[in-house]
C-alpha cells in the first residue's frame, strides 16, 4: 500500500539496484566451445567471463580443424544453475561461436589434464619420488643428479594428489595444461 516518503532520519542503506540474489547451490561444469579461429576470439570469450563476473577454473584452447579454421575451447567453470544457463546463452550469442556443449550435463564426458612436475631431492626422497611416480604412471622426461621432471596425465584430481605427495619430497614447480574434455560414445559435438 501507500508508503510515506522516507523520513530523513532513515538510514540511506538502500541503493537503486535490487538486492543480491539468494544463495543457490554452486555447480562445477566443463563447457566445450567450438569457435571460428579468428583474431580476438579468445579475448571475446575471456572478456565475457570477466565482464559479467563469471569464474574460470581452467581453460584450454587450440585449433582442431585447420581447413575449416575451427578451434575448440574447453572451460571449467562454476556457478548456480541460473548462472550456468546464462554463461551458455551469452557464449552462444558471440558471433564467431558455433556451438556450446555442457559436457558435465550428461555426466558422460572424459576429462584429462597433463602436468609437468619438477622435483628436486637427494637420497631417500629421490627414490620415494620415483616410486610414487611409477605408481601414478608418471614418466620421467628429464633427469639430473639433483632433479626429475615428471610428465603425468589424468583427471585433475589425480594430478592434485600427485602434487600433494611430491611436496615433502622437494617439489620445485608444476605446469598444468588445464582440463581438456570430450564426450563418450560415437557422437561428435
Amino acid at each position, binding site marked *: 500500500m501507500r508508503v510515506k*516518503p522516507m523520513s530523513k532520519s532513515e538510514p540511506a542503506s538502500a541503493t537503486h539496484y535490487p538486492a543480491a540474489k539468494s544463495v543457490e547451490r554452486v555447480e562445477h561444469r566443463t563447457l566445450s566451445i567450438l569457435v571460428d579461429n579468428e583474431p580476438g576470439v579468445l579475448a571475446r570469450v575471456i*572478456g565475457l567471463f570477466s565482464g559479467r563476473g563469471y569464474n574460470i577454473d581452467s581453460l584450454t584452447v587450440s585449433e582442431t580443424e585447420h581447413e575449416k579454421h575451427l578451434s575448440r575451447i574447453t572451460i571449467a567453470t562454476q556457478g548456480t544453475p541460473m548462472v550456468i544457463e546464462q554463461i551458455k546463452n551469452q557464449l552462444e550469442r558471440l558471433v564467431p561461436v558455433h556451438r556450446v556443449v555442457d559436457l558435465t550435463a550428461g555426466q558422460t564426458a572424459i576429462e584429462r589434464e597433463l602436468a609437468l612436475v619438477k622435483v628436486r631431492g637427494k637420497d631417500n626422497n629421490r627414490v620415494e619420488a620415483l616410486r610414487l611416480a611409477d605408481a601414478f604412471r608418471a614418466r620421467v622426461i628429464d633427469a639430473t643428479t639433483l632433479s626429475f621432471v615428471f610428465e603425468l596425465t589424468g583427471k585433475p584430481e589425480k594430478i592434485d594428489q600427485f602434487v600433494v605427495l611430491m611436496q615433502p619430497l622437494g617439489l620445485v614447480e608444476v605446469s598444468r595444461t588445464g582440463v581438456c574434455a570430450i564426450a563418450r560414445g560415437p557422437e561428435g559435438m
Partner: protein
Amino acid sequence: MQHEMTGAEMVIQALVDQGVEHLFGYPGGAVLPIYDELFKQEKLRHILVRHEQGAVHAAEGYARSSGKVGAVLVTSGPGATNAVTGLTDALMDSIPIVVLTGQVPTHLIGNDAFQECDTVGITRPCTKHNYLVKNVNDLSRVIHEAFYVAANGRPGPVVVDIPKDIQFAKGTYVGPRNIQHKTYRPRLKGDIEKIKQAIELMRHAKRPLFYTGGGVINSGNEASVLLRELVKLTGFPITSTLMGLGAYAAHDPQWIGMLGMHGTYEANLSMHGCDLMICIGARFDDRITGKLDAFSPGSKKIHVDIDPSSINKNVKVDVPIIGDCAHVLEDMIRIWRSISAQPDKKALSQWWKQIDQWRARKSLAYKNSDKIIKPQYAIQRLYELTKDKDTYITTEVGQHQMWAAQFYQFQEPRRWMTSGGLGTMGYGLPAAVGVQMAHPNSLVIDIAGEASVLMTMQEMSTAAQYELPIKIFIINNQYMGMVRQWQELLHGGRYSHSYTEALPDFVKLAEAYHAVGIRCSKPADLDGAIEEMIKVKKPVLFDCVVDPNENCFPMIPSGRPHNEMILGDAGVDPESAITEEGKVMV
C-alpha cells in the same frame, strides 16, 4: 559486381550498396583517404558533427526513427574512444549502427603510434561484434557482414576498424549479394508447441497482462500492428517499458501506462497482482522488476525474445519463446483465431474493475500553479500543441525524461527516442539531429534538461550548419533534478553538487549558434511560446523555466517491490480508491 578499387573506394561503394544515404562523421588523419573519396561523389551525404559521441547518437536517432541501420565514420585514437559512449548506448538499447573507425597503418599497430588505440580491444565489450581489417580483399565482405550483424537478430552496434594502408591498397570489391555469414543466423520463428502452450495459458488466465518492450519496436512496424491486433482480440490490459512506448497507442483504453520505477500505479500494481504475464520483447531490467524476490509473485510468465540470453537472466519464466516478436505475434494470433479462443470474460471483467480502481488513484496527478510552470504542465502543453503534427520526440536523461514518458502520449512506434539502458545524459540533442536528417519535414523536439543538454550542446552547431529546425525544449530547473530527488529522498536532503551555478543564458547561447532562443517562465505565456517555437523554421533553444523543487512521482524506491510505491500528494487518496478486495491483492 567484382572489380578492382582502393580500400577507400570500397568503403563508399559498400555503404552505397547497403542503402546508406547519410553518414555521420568527423575527419582525422587515419580516415583521410575515405574523406577524399567522399569529396569525389554525391550519392552519400556526410553530416559533420562536432564531437564523435554526437555522431553515434545522431546515427542512433536516425536508426530508431527510420528503422534503417545508422552509419558513422570517425578517425583513429580519440575519434574511436569518443565514440565509445554512443556504442555502449546502442548496445544497451539494441540499436543497429555500423561505426567505421580509421586505424594507424598495419605496420604501426602496436607501436604506440600517433593517434593509435586498441580500438577492437576497447570496443569489444561495448559492441555486438567488431572487426579489424588487415587485408583489403576482406574489406567489402566485412562491411557487408557488419550491416548484416547490426540489423539481424537482436540489433546492436558493430565496429569496423580500417588501417590507413588498407584504405590506400587496391583489391577486389564484392557486392552485398554474395555475402552470407558463416555462423550468425538468428532464429525468427518461435517454437510452435511453446506458442500453443502460451495460448492455452492466455485462454484460462484470470488476471492477464501484456508487458511489452523495445523488442516490439525493433521488430518493425508490422510487430506493432500485430500487437494491437492481439491485445484487441484478447481484451487484456497492456503496459510497456520506457523503450517500448508507442508500440501500443497511448489513447487506447486498454493501455494502462508505462511500468517500472516511475510507472503508473495501475501498471505496477497490475504487474504485481497479475496471474499471467505475457512479456514481449522486454528484458526484466532492474528498473522494471524492483525487488526481484517480490516481483510479481503469483504469476505464470511467458517471455518472447529473439535473444536466448535474455531468457531466465533475471526472472525465471514458465514459457520461454525464442523468436522475433512479429513472427511470434503472428503465430499467436493465427492460433488464437484457429481455435476460436475466448478469454475468461467473467474473470477479465473483474480484473478490469480492479485496474480501474487503481487508475482512479490518478497517480500522475500534480498540483498545478498559475505562478510558476510545473514541468509536468509544460510537457502536457507541449503534447497538446504538437499531437496533431508529424512529431518525433527525443530526450536527455533524468526527471524530464520520465515526465516526458509519463505525459507525452505516444500513438505510433518509432516516435520516441530516449537512452533507456545506459541512461546517457546528452543523448537527446544529437539524436534529434539524426532524426531530423531522416525526416526533414517533420517536427523534431528534444525534451531536455538544462544539465544534460550542456553535455552535447556543441551539436547545435551541426544543426545550424545543416539548417535542421530541431527544437530543444529545456525543462530548466537549475538542478540535476533526478540526482536532487534521490538526495532529497535517500541522502537527508544534502544536495551535494547537484545544483548548477552559472548556467549559460540559453537565449543568448541560441543566438551564438545562429539559432533562435525563447524563454518562458509564466504558465500563462507557455502556449504562445510553444506555438512560436513550432513556427520558427530554425533550430530553437527553448528555456522553459520550471519549479526547481518538483519531484517525479510515482516512484518505486530502491530495491522495493511494485506494491510499495511512493506517490505524489496530489492524487486521490488510496484509501478511498481501493476496495477491500484490492487491499488483499496488493
